[in-house]
């Protein structure tokens, strides 16, 4: 059987896409298994005897494990809050017509666009005044500014797809709106809520600027600690890359779960 050149090119192209997407990730993971000598060798080595030393070191380092715990606390709490606050709002936006609805939309979407530095400056000053600097709470609250819009958008979309007949029937049985929300919309909208929660988690897990500005020692998150290794003369490259791998791996798995919704999550649904 002869393989046509078109097919061969197609296969080569697709392979190139896979290599392009994975190379930096692969390079980080492979460096995390290298000794410092292997990392510093020039030209770089591609084949080497892997070592677990870097992982042993970072898991023994309370700074890294503490930071990962901080990231977990902040991302989980803010995600739960975003869903709790966002799902009812999505219900109102999916079900009702009211004045100011388009302004509300605009507001939610603008929040997707705003540079974190715009809020980081005043929130820093307010956090100093209220004594909230370097607490989990201040990060949890500030992360809601980008999580709520994502949750509201995705969940509204999901709620709109729930057939209105179900609700008519419940109404005739005398159910009020709060019951309808709890008994019909929440269970049927669960897939959308889950997707929006995963996005919220990924975005807050990945966040650096707010965490850098609003934390000191106590609540440094994982990206901040990974960044803090980047000073001094002899950089512990293996440790840095092992920390990077540990940070990226959980969100990558999450992202693969919601990969079909990735575009929706990143564009706020402007393209179908």
């Amino acid at each position, binding site marked *: 059987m002869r393989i046509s050149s078109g097919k061969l090119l197609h296969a080569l192209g*697709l392979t190139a896409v896979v290599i392009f997407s994975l190379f*930096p990730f692969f390079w980080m993971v492979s460096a995390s298994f290298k000794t410092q000598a292997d990392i510093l060798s020039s030209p770089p080595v591609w084949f080497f005897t892997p070592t677990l030393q870097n992982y042993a070191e970072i898991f023994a380092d309370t700074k890294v494990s503490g930071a990962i715990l901080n990231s977990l606390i902040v991302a989980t709490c803010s995600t739960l809050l975003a869903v709790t606050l966002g799902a009812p709002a999505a219900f109102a936006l999916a079900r009702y017509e009211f004045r100011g609805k388009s302004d509300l939309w605009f507001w939610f979407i603008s929040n997707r666009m705003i540079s974190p530095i715009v809020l980081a400056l005043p929130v820093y000053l307010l956090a100093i005044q209220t004594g909230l600097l370097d607490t989990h709470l201040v990060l949890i609250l500030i992360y809601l500014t980008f999580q709520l819009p994502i949750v509201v958008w995705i969940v509204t979309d999901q709620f709109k797809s729930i057939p209105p007949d179900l609700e008519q029937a419940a109404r005739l049985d005398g159910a009020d709106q709060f019951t309808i929300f709890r008994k019909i919309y929440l269970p049927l909208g669960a897939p959308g809520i889950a997707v929006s929660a995963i996005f919220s988690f990924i975005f807050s897990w990945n966040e650096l600027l707010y965490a850098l500005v609003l934390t000191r020692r106590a609540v440094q998150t994982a990206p*901040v600690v990974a960044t803090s290794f980047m000073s001094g003369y002899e950089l512990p490259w293996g440790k*840095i890359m092992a920390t*990077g791998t540990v*940070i*990226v791996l959980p969100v990558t798995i999450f992202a693969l779960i919601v990969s079909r919704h990735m575009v929706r999550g990143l564009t706020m649904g402007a393209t179908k």
Partner: protein
Amino acid sequence: MSEAATTAARRKPNRGYGRWTPLWFLAPSVLTLLLIGIYPTLFALVTSFRQYNITRPRDGFPFVGFDNYVHVLTDSTFWSSLFLTAQFYVTVLPIQVVLGLAIALLLHKPGMGLLKSLARVTLVVPLATTYAVVGLIGRLIFNRDFGVANQFAGFLGLGPVDWLSTPNGAFAAIAIMDIWQWTPFCALIFLAGLSMVPGEIEEAARLETSSKLALLRYVQLPYLLPGLTAVMILRSADVLKLFDMVFVMTRGGPGSATDLISIYIQRVGFRIFDLGTASAQAILLLILTIIISRLYIRVLYREVN
């Protein structure tokens, strides 16, 4: 009679059907956003009219009218930083669009099922990678002495490039990392556009012409345009926000070679601690962002309202 009965039943004042019902559902999130979004923004607005340097608390924080704005608008560093951000945008965007379109076409082409799904899934990896970690990887890949970028450059017969400590090298390095991270975004959007082309139209066109270019130009392009607009607008907002990756890789240097706008404002605010000036800069950036968001909504959400 029965019709009247149903109407009456529907009108029966059930709990939770009033005019104000939506408010109960909206209030928690709107109040939260007012507290954590609008209040700080107003605070920044007030700060932008004050002299507010927290390293000199003895001076107090007096109101100085539009002084900060005058200072910012006549500050050549602010303008060159905005210009650099624009330069970065026009450098990375065309490459991301062209590469993204090429990838989308590869993924749209029939056949190669398994390899295609694999490629489709791996595209998600750059998008999900923590931006700060992308910066860390960049530092390793573009290291002058042991970076793999110089190994590749060597294969092409180019001498070792001092990526991160020369202005052009650093700019190229952050551009390459941004292209790596965001090309998949363009590819996925274009792929969504391509799959909107009705199958029968595409097949008929394939029978009519063997030219891929004609197919792209006359059949697929109209379906790609909304995605292209979304990419152009969203990427412009993203470049204005771009901080994490560049901060980790270059901190805006060497000199001011990669001093994009968010990096610059962060430095004025949190290195120089001139929060009055930084707030004025942030408010100007906010205005620019609002214009971009308006544009985005006007162009892309027409069907929503």
